[in-house]
């Protein structure tokens, strides 16, 4: 027995999942003084294996028919297998299994990311030309007819028409929906967290909020239209000067708020629940009333989460198509008035440009506008998500001040 060998069996020296200890001791050269060291792999082995796998994968896939997808699959499989075998031979089984699963997790992550990257890439590459068209943001579709589109497709004149009306419609409708949903949703969650004490009413509210989360958006749209039509008929029978048609921006906002309220309730409820009870009690102990405690202690402590949740709820409804189509309709001109006349939103605009191109036989300009509008929509949603993060960061309680 060499002096480096452990005298008594320790958990590390007996045979374990890492393999028998005896296998390692012969490799232990004179340069390795410590009994804790084992074979390690040089840092460059990973990139080299990846390069080899890429080359082999390219060769294998060109044997069938070369395509990027096939190349990716072969490379991934080869890389995982080769690095497992090398680690198994050079180090030990435990390290090899560890590396194997780690590679699988990375692979799953890459696969999960692929659709997102691909969506962003395709929308950007197809939509960018339309976006850079002069006047795309500044003009609406008024006066754009089939002959203009035919001319730009056949003779290469600039594609006219833009998304001004849709952008304004989307923003107005979403802001109105937010103004309706946030107070209702926030107050509901305040009731649930601060006042309900787990009673029957609270459980009923939680149940119905859960049901509301699952309402198909088209149903919310139909509800919004029907509710507004009923309201208008009741109002006009009382002699109020109301518009006769229920198709207008505010109806769409009501329909969207049906979708938005449950999201707001859920997120703000979570945020209010994580506010420590100690802070409420500290406030009560200072002789502060409950509503002031909620207003000045609980909500400020949770404000970052609440703001982020609201922003994400906005991002969720700004892409809705069906409820806006059935409640606010579709027009080609800009409408600033939420309570009068039809209104276009961005998703509806995209839908219409694809489904009913301005010139049925020369649809390229319409498709270009649709893709550019889709790019704008994605950018808005990304911007909202970014805003949510910034808000969460800015309003977060200050952790340290040392």
């Amino acid at each position, binding site marked *: 027995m060499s002096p480096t060998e452990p005298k008594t069996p320790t958990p590390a020296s007996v045979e374990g999942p890492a393999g028998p200890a005896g296998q390692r001791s012969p490799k232990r050269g004179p340069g390795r003084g410590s009994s804790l060291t084992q074979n390690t792999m040089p840092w460059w082995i990973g990139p080299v294996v990846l390069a080899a796998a890429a080359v082999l994968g390219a060769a294998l896939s060109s044997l069938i028919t070369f395509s990027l997808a096939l190349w990716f699959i072969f490379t991934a499989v080869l890389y995982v297998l080769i690095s497992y075998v090398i680690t198994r031979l050079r180090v030990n089984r435990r390290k090899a299994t560890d590396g194997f699963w780690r590679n699988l997790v990375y692979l799953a992550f890459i696969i999960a990311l692929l659709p997102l990257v691909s969506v962003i890439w395709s929308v950007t590459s197809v939509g960018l030309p339309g976006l850079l068209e002069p006047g795309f943001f500044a003009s609406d579709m008024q006066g754009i007819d089939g002959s203009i589109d035919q001319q730009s497709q056949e003779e290469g004149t600039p594609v006219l028409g833009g998304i001004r009306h849709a952008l304004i419609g989307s923003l107005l409708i979403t802001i109105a929906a937010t103004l309706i949903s946030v107070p209702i949703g926030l107050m509901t969650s305040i009731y649930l967290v601060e006042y309900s004490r787990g009673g029957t009413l609270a459980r009923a509210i939680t149940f119905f909020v859960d049901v509301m989360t699952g309402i198909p958006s088209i149903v919310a749209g139909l509800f919004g239209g029907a509710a507004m039509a009923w309201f208008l008929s009741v109002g006009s029978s009382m002699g109020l000067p109301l518009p006769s048609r229920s198709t207008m921006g505010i109806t769409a906002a009501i329909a969207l708020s049906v979708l938005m309220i449950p999201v707001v309730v859920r997120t703000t409820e979570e945020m209010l629940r994580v506010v420590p009870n100690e802070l409420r*009690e500290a406030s009560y102990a200072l002789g502060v009333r409950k509503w002031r405690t909620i207003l000045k202690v609980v909500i400020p402590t949770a404000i970052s989460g609440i703001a982020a949740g609201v922003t994400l709820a906005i991002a969720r409804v700004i892409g809705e198509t069906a409820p806006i189509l059935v409640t606010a309709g579709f027009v080609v001109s800009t409408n600033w008035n939420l309570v009068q006349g039809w209104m276009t939103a961005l998703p509806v605009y995209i839908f219409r440009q694809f489904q009913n191109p301005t010139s049925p036989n020369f649809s390229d300009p319409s498709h270009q506008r649709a893709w550019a509008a889709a790019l704008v929509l994605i950018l808005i949603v990304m911007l909202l998500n970014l805003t949510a993060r910034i808000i969460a960061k800015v309003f977060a309680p200050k952790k340290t001040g040392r």
Partner: protein
Amino acid sequence: MSKHIETRDLNVYYGEFLAVEGVNISIAARSVTAFIGPSGCGKTTFLRTLNRMHEVLPGARVEGELLLDGENIYGTGVDPVTVRSMVGMVFQRPNPFPTMSIRENVLAGYKLNGARMSKSQADDVVEEALMGANLWNEVKERLDKPGSGLSGGQQQRLCIARTIAVKPDVILMDEPCSALDPISTLAIEDLIHELKQEYTVVIVTHNMQQAARVSEKTAFFNIAGTGKPGKMIEYDETATIFNNPNNEQTERYVSGKFG
């Protein structure tokens, strides 16, 4: 400024569960009283009834009378918020408001209630309260930094400053040193000695040496078994409780034979 406390047959419930039974105690003004006893015997529960914090929990209620200078705080028509502004409380874990600076934390009792005060008035209140909590010299340079950036002991003294800033009559302390190191504990104990000049202080503690060091009178609470109500076994001068208790349970507890 300071008021005496007297309870008459006070029963404390969590829903139907009787947690503390039949407490009769008389706490003098301008004194320090310690509550000791094994875990779960109802010391903290009883302490929380002294400023009506107990009923914040769902289903919690109190029977009996609790007189603050002769006025029953559980009488009909008494607003618990008024009681709490007279009886301040310091909690086991330091809990400064994380959204507020040190200065705002001290002023929380005024600011949260929407009181208007000039800047010089506010400065006076902040300085006086922080001086009173022995914290002024440590934080006077960084009053606008968040309170959560202080050390645990400083945070606890900030919470005491916040409590004395609203000038209560009674200060309740629920194991104020259990999360602190010996040096911070010493600072708080010194502070309790000073607070006694102006306030009635009631402190719950698990540390018998601490009770012996800071208090003039000590109440021993005990529980007969799980599910049984806690009771006040003995209430006397601290020296008597620790050296020559009348009750056998008290003697066994303070000599470390159980609990």
